[in-house]
């Protein structure tokens, strides 16, 4: 790329004042990134993802004779498996951006799941009767509020009592796992409320092809609206605009990805057994060659996407988000600028806790039970997802979409290794090495960028 750039500088120099700010010498790739305002790191992650996916698929095809990775079934399952970690990773971004850490999310998840299971299996049926339609809603609220309260308590210890986050949440890692055990004396509580269980995915926990198309189209309209209003806003103040081709490209690629995802989840049919069960229950006769019923988006995936959109909005469009990043960039300056940094810190941990509660909903619903060791080691996967997604441990830098992509990368690695038959020990070695390698690459990238 740098070879090309030399030829472009032969153009007559513009006024020196103009050249002062922006580098006049840049290759076509840099120009492309600048025009579309796409982060180079995002492209890198997508590249890594494509590499991992095709790599596992081809390995399966060559070594085992059949590749399982790039099938609708696997990718659909992959999306479901990513949800729980992905939801928590969006909160971990804020925690790490403000130079803190939360090691307690896995244990908190176990505790929240246990609280919800007790609420919906032991307590509420006594008062409302088994299968009452309010049970699942109350259980979810209880889980999220429990998480938020625990998180706020951690945040209070960190912000107002000056205990390092590492210590507070390390204590939490042990304490909440122990509390989860104490709550139910180590029992596994199962099954959960049947509506609640839908939030974990599965054939019934997916929304079907029609609603998947509806959501896909709505998201596409959303992208177009965002691009158009952004452009109009900048026109209003006569700021420099993105080139029209870049706007088109962003719109087309964005909508293409969404619609492609819809087609993918719709091409994964219900298993034959479930179809027969469903047909029998609804008095439908199954034709000879089988009935094709699409899964569509799984509910936990929709929850993760909604959380991702909400958190992106929170970090980029609200005061709270601005303060989070300002504190991460320079805590002292943020305080001097009049930001109540302690209160913001407390809110960050409370939000992290609420997301853990939501993630506990997905995890326990997927398992249809709450076990004492639910969420064990999740803290490491969550932190790894955020860090692989470009969140800097030295603070101030990180994105929500990066963390979700990071979670997807982690999960892809694990799923892929399971599919090609690596055993658990090798999986741990690989995941650990990838984490270290990803941070190493990121360090190099940052040094270059400065």
């Amino acid at each position, binding site marked *: 790329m740098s070879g090309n750039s030399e030829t472009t500088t032969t153009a007559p120099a513009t006024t020196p004042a103009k050249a002062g700010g922006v580098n006049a010498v840049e290759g076509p790739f840099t120009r492309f990134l600048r025009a579309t305002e796409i982060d180079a790191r995002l492209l890198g992650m997508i590249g890594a993802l494509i590499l991992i996916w095709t790599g596992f698929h081809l390995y399966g095809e060559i070594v085992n004779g059949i590749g399982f990775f790039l099938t609708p079934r696997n990718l659909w399952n992959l999306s479901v498996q990513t949800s729980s970690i992905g939801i928590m990773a969006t909160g971990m971004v804020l925690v790490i951006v403000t130079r803190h850490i939360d090691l307690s999310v896995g244990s908190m998840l176990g505790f929240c799941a246990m609280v919800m299971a007790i609420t919906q299996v032991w307590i509420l049926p006594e008062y409302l009767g088994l299968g009452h339609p309010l049970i699942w809603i109350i259980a979810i609220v209880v889980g999220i509020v429990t998480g938020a309260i625990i998180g706020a308590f951690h945040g209070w210890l960190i912000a107002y009592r000056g205990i390092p986050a590492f210590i507070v949440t390390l204590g939490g890692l042990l304490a909440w796992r122990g509390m989860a055990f104490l709550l139910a004396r180590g029992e596994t509580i199962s099954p959960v409320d049947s509506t609640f269980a839908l939030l974990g995915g599965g054939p019934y926990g997916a929304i079907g092809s029609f609603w998947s198309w509806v959501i896909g189209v709505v998201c596409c309209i959303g992208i177009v609206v965002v691009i158009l209003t952004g452009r109009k806003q900048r026109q209003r103040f006569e700021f420099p605009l993105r080139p029209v081709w870049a706007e088109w490209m962003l719109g087309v690629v964005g909508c293409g990805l969404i619609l492609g995802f819809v087609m993918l989840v719709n091409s994964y049919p219900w298993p034959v057994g479930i179809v027969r069960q469903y047909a029998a229950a609804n008095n439908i006769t199954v034709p000879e060659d089988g009935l094709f019923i699409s899964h569509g988006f799984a509910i936990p995936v929709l929850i993760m996407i909604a959380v991702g959109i909400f958190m992106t909005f929170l970090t980029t469009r609200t005061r709270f988000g601005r303060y989070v990043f300002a504190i991460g960039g320079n805590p002292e300056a*943020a305080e001097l600028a009049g930001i109540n940094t302690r209160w913001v810190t407390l809110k960050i941990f409370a939000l992290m806790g609420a997301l853990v509660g939501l993630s506990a909903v997905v995890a326990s619903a997927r398992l249809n039970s709450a076990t004492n060791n639910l969420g064990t080691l999740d803290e490491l996967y969550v932190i790894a997802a955020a860090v692989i997604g470009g969140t800097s441990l030295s603070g*101030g830098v990180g994105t929500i979409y990066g963390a979700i992509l990071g979670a997807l990368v982690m999960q892809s690695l694990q799923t892929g290794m399971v599919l090609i038959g690596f055993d658990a020990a090798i999986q741990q070695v690989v995941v650990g090495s990838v984490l270290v390698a990803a941070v190493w690459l990121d360090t190099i990238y940052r040094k270059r960028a400065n």
Partner: protein
Amino acid sequence: MATATAPKAPAADRGTPLVELRDMSIAFGGIKAVDHANVDLYPGEVMGLLGHNGAGKSTLIKILSGAYKRDTGSIIINGEEVTIANPRDAKKHGIETIYQTLALADNVDAAANLYLGRELLTSWGTLDDVAMEASARKVMGRLNPNFRRFKEPVKLLSGGQRQSVAIARAILFNARILVMDEPTAALGPQETSQVGELIQQLKQDGIGIFLIEHDIHNVFELCDRVCVMKNGQVVGTANVSDVSKDEVLGMIIAGKCPPGATPGLGAANL
């Protein structure tokens, strides 16, 4: 609302001072960083705070801007005693500060820094980035017409550009009292003279300015009065017209208070 003690200001009667710092003390461990200091400031006046490194100038003004909590003393603004417990309180009283370290959030852009803590919001309650950028372009255009890097995090800017962001932030919100801790430290000659013009302009608007500055020539050019500190104590306060540069240097180095100045606690007994 303590009854006023004998007036200390040597200046002609100019009504109530904008700010009075009375009997300010603060200690860190055993070290008295500021020791019973008295300073005042009138509207439309530039008060130079001088002294060696470690004399207590920055600490004194950090009490005024709410970054430090004083041990004793009172802050009186327009004749009324006020409580300043944190930077938010100071801003409420119209006190804006340009810190020596600039106190910028390095990872966000210029507009975000200008409005940090006081963001403009849309009617939906979300950040109005476009409006903030528009007004940032306006105010930066006044201070530093060559500035164009509005999209980049401020850590990528040059020292002078960062300094102009910090200055712009202080003047954006109609301050009544401006505290400048070495505002020209990172600036070239041209930008320094721009800051000088800006100070003149702000004076005419009736803003009072505390200026910490090491360059004695700049002090005599920009300030109306000077207050020299040594070891946390005030050596003396003087109109710049009543003292010579050598006398001021004598105050800074030896703590010797010349006849043209009103002596403070720290004046050496010779």
